């Protein structure tokens, strides 16, 4: 009996139990030393199993692979991200994810290539955080697309703009690459992109139409409204639904007044309420999608300090404290990092003024720490060019 048969037999006996079935060839002993175990059928079975199972545990030598490796990722000529910035990215991912968009934009501007080990985690993040997709696609470059194509995961990255759009992509067969070409065209010549979408539309199939609609939504332009409204008669329900949504958004944009100048509006709101107010809070929170000008940020900072001074005197606890904290964090996140010098100066004054140890109402130290973090993370990305 060969080992494999022996083993299979031992397994089946063990399953039902040696009380019910005899161990085949029990007296043989099979090389196990004589002790009490050879008398007891159960223990004898285990001794036999230890030997009979050995070939199974050694396994077989590795199989051959049939020579054809998949193509590796195309080379990326950009210089590698400096070590300090790579450590910074680790910190951002672990502790300060809100600064990732700003950091990625700075990496893109500086022209560095990321260590590829970061790619999967960042691609996972951009699945849900769609705002970072354009910058991430440019920063990852070829490795991002190669990973998406190799694994079938993160396919969205294939539809994002590439560093150097290739007109051959538009005429080629790959729908994702065609959408990526239009996304790239938007970066250099939005007008040409809009015209291309409208002219090519009738011949496109639904998946491409949906991709192009997503681009129109990402770069909303009220002049597209007539075209988008015409899509309400498209044959695909998905296209009809998406275009209706987009048309509504474009209409609201068209009818809304011009977006107010940040600094002017902050000044106006501060003057009318003589300090921070709910309206100021609403306005500030509605403008966290873009960096702020320094003068507007200074006005906010000074108003926060004034508010803290008044609150310390009156000792009243109300909504304004919570609003002040929210505005304070927003300033740290959105203001230009050059503001840190003013914060540092105010902190020194504050430290001198609060000798009695009362906790300050505005946490300038925390603000300074965040501003310095942003300043340092940007300084580490001085251009590669």
């Amino acid at each position: 009996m060969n080992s494999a048969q022996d083993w299979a037999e031992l397994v089946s006996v063990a399953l039902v139990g040696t009380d019910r079935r005899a161990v085949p060839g029990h007296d043989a002993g099979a090389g196990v030393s004589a002790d009490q175990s050879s008398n007891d059928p159960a223990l004898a079975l285990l001794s036999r199993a230890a030997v009979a199972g050995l070939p199974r545990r050694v396994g077989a030598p590795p199989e051959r692979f049939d020579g054809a490796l998949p193509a590796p990722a195309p080379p990326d000529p950009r210089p590698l991200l400096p070590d300090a910035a790579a450590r910074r990215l680790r910190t951002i991912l672990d502790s300060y994810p809100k600064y990732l968009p700003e950091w990625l934009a700075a990496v893109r501007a500086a022209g560095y290539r990321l260590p590829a080990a970061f790619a999967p985690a960042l691609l996972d993040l951009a699945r849900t955080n769609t705002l970072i997709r354009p910058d991430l696609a440019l920063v990852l470059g070829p490795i991002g697309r190669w990973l998406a194509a190799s694994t079938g995961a993160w396919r969205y990255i294939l539809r994002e703009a590439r560093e150097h759009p290739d007109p051959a992509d538009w005429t080629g067969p790959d729908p994702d690459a065609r959408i990526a070409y239009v996304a790239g065209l938007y970066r250099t010549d939005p007008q040409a992109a809009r015209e291309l979408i409208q002219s090519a539309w009738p011949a496109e199939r639904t998946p491409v139409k949906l991709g192009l609609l997503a681009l129109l939504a990402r770069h909303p332009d009220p002049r597209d409204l007539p075209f988008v409204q015409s899509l309400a008669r498209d044959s695909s329900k998905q296209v009809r639904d998406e275009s209706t949504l987009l048309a509504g958004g474009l209409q609201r944009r068209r009818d809304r007044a011009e977006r107010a100048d940040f600094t002017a509006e902050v000044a106006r709101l501060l003057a009318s309420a003589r300090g921070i107010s709910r309206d100021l809070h609403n306005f500030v929170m509605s403008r966290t999608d873009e960096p702020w000008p320094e003068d507007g940020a200074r006005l906010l900072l000074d108003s926060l300090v004034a508010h803290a001074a008044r609150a310390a005197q009156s000792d009243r606890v109300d909504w304004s404290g919570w609003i002040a904290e929210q505005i304070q964090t927003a300033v740290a996140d959105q203001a230009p990092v050059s503001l840190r010098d003013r914060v540092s100066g105010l902190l020194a004054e504050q430290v001198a003024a609060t000798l009695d140890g009362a906790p300050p109402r505005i946490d300038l130290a925390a603000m300074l720490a965040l501003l310095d973090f942003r300043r340092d993370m940007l300084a580490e990305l001085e251009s590669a060019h």
Partner: protein
Amino acid sequence: MAGPINPSAANRTGIPARWTAAQIHALAPDAASQKAGVKLGGPAPWSEYGAQAESGLVWGSCKGSGAKPYQVTVQLLADSAGPPVYACTCPSRKFPCKHALGLLLLWSAGTVPESEVLPPRVEEWLAGRRERAERSEARKAAQAAAQADDPEAARRANQATARRAEQRARRISSGLDDLELWLRDQVRAGLTGLKGGGYRPIDDLARRLVDAQAPGVAGRVRELASCLSAEDWPERTLTEFALLHLLIQGWRHRDALPAPLAATVRRRIGLSLGAAEIAAAGEHADDRWLVLGSRDRIGDKLIERRVWLQGESGGRLALLLTFAPPGQSLGLALPVGAVLDADLAFAPDAVPLRAVVVEQKALLTESAQSPAPHGGTLEEAAAAFAAALAADPWTAAVPVVVGSAVPLVGARPEDWQIADTKGGGRVPLFARGEGVDPSRADQIRYGLLASGGGHPAPLFGLYRPGGLTPLTVWSEGRAVSL
């Protein structure tokens, strides 16, 4: 703010000019502390900070949630002779606390100025430590002198040790007799009954084995639960039963076994040798050791850190082990890809792998670059596994370096393979080893694919015939821990 620590001063005394952030992160007792430490790694909350390279001291005051700032002091030992000493006035029970980690990161970044003069509180602390160390030395010297003077006392001490060892051996034998009866009863009644019986009887048996001071066996018994829930549970369970039976026989006949195999039996039962014993009895090897990989395994009472090393001169592999209760720092701060210049001693074993550091001369982590490891083919890995299994029947996996490995994406996650472009073989990529959960397994697979970019690269992992579990890959001259 003054400039950074004077590097030439540091080299004179042998204290590393500056630890790298990677080394400091390795000191953190857990991920939460590491993140909290990073948040405190900038200058904003710190005041009155300074360092003195000669004595290896770094100090500072950190603004905390209370009214008074926390006072932190860290002493780095010369030649990294041991883990740093931490002192902080915060109420945390973790060592090092987040303030100590933040201070070290601040120092590592070059922000902490060198100071000739120590603040009074640091002087006091140092003086206190010196005093305590002197008292403890005096006590030990008195004890040793007493024993030398009094051979009777020395003999009694040795006898007490021998008695304890005998008592433990008796307990183990009794526990293993108990285990054998249980194994026999299960096989008599049929393993099908065991599968339906639930986890309780296995848990109880494991507890009894822990009481019998055989923790290695207890751990194997607990693993039966996962054997029983596998698809091929009859084969897996019978295999594990047979191995337990073999281990019991090995223990009973340990005096008749060749010494290395007897040492393996003792180790697998859970009788581990102490560092001092290994240093005294084990084979020494002096080399520059590349840190191949590091993994922490979380047990119910302890965290175990395993660090694998490879000798530069011959490619010999070594495994360093350290344990700590959760919340305490695990002493080995060895970043993957660093080179440890040290004299190791290997614990006697049928397959010598576990080692201790007898003398550490230097830890080279200046740049993020890592030398490439010595690599082999998958056929050589399979042969190494077979050789290990022949010497130690309880071998589950062997550490190997595949010199030129590429992952092959499969239709499903479990279909991924690793191809060896030098030897031409391929094996499954087994990411789920040791109860790794699916999302972590994805991380390992995608991390390997991204780091290599489809190019063959050196890969360190644990090999068993069922597949290779990757731990570290080298890419662009850097070691990437997966």
